[in-house]
């Protein structure tokens, strides 16, 4: 992703999400990484709350975005999405059940 904002002047920031570190801080999901460009080596942090996660999903479901992805990525993208979603669902359930049974085990 490339980000430009008025305050950055002539600088366009390239951001590589694949290399970002993901941490959870209180009620926020935080991505930390580096912006590497000509004479620029800056650390960045992008923090999201619940609403931002849902907004990002809504962005992906926009008609224009979906058409663009369907045209450029084809079924590969939905295959990735389904595969990752299933793994995500199982991982979350395992974390939930693990936490549930773990907390019961700790009870006196």
């Amino acid at each position, binding site marked *: 992703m490339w980000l430009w904002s008025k305050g950055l002047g*002539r600088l366009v920031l390239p951001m590589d999400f694949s290399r970002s570190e993901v941490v959870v801080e209180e009620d926020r999901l935080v991505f930390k990484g580096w912006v590497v460009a000509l004479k620029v080596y800056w*650390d960045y942090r992008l923090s999201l709350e619940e609403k931002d996660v849902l907004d990002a999903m809504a962005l992906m479901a926009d008609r224009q975005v979906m058409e663009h*992805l369907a045209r450029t990525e084809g079924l590969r993208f939905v295959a990735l999405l389904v595969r990752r979603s299933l793994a995500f669902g199982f991982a979350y359930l395992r974390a939930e059940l693990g936490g549930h049974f773990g907390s019961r085990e700790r009870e006196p």
Partner: protein
Amino acid sequence: MRYWSKGLADRSVLNIDWSEKARRISVEDGRALLASVIPSRSIRGDLPPEGAHVVVAGDTQPPIVWRYISVLTAEDFDHIVKLATGAGMVRFLAGQPRGRRLFLRLARLLLGFSVKYIRTWERVKLCPSGSRRDRSR
């Protein structure tokens, strides 16, 4: 979402709202768009390759209100999906008091998206010119 990088120094954070009311989406040549905003000879940093990209633009939210443009490639959406379904998100949901509710909402959205995506893919594959015509309206 809140973005901070070293270059912003003590200017707090950029508060970027990707909700429907606060952003505009288009599919266009992101490189050409950036070049139209910044004189190309003086652009610092790498630019996206030529071709169609998803462009999300709008104004950042207070305290600093600046116009912003973000250019996303199809590869970025792969990374977004990987991050949204990765271990970090699992930890985030598991630690949230309303995590279970958000998980169910996300699961519903992902399922709905997958179905909608396949329908879109069929439409684009069967009638590519038709969907382009629709988009230009």
